[in-house]
């Protein structure tokens, strides 16, 4: 599953540390999410989308 976390985060000039703190996860988790090495739970995906003010589908790109 691909995502646009890094792109959206940079657009909004948010640092990885800030995003991690807001979501209650480690900075390494944000880094792993951005590189696609780790797929988040539905709860974390929802929190990320809500933090950016977007829907899950806007942030995460599901592939068949």
């Amino acid at each position, binding site marked *: 599953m691909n995502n646009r976390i890094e792109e959206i985060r940079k657009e909004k000039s948010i640092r990885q540390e800030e995003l991690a703190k807001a979501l*209650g*996860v*480690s900075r*390494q988790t944000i880094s792993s999410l951005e590189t696609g090495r780790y797929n988040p*739970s539905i*709860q974390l995906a929802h929190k990320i989308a809500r933090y950016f003010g977007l829907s899950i589908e806007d942030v995460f790109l599901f592939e068949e």
Partner: protein
Amino acid sequence: MKNRRWILSVVYMVLGIALFATAFFELLDSFWSGMGTALFVIGLLRLLQAIRYHSNAQYREDTDTAIGDERNKFLSMKAWSWAGYLFVMIAAVATIVFKLLDMESEMFLASGAVCLVIILYWVSYLIVRKKY
């Protein structure tokens, strides 16, 4: 981290001292003094960690994040899964090697370990299947 951590740390230290003392007065053998020392050190380290957790806000925040972090939990589960799988593989190979070397008791120990882990896996699987 709650008060339980403080209590457990003190229990470890007291138990460690008690074991060390009984071995020191030759009521038990040196194995127990070694275990007592290890328990005391673990208790002391946990206590120092608990003190730091209560006195250092940044450390508290970092610790809480690390504990609650879902990727950390995932990594921990993955590491346990790999460790269990590797243990079974190594014990299975050891069983064959011990058999070839005609080391019967070691062979039974290694094969018993394989069986035990597999039984534990199936029991865990049945419990987890009901839970999720």
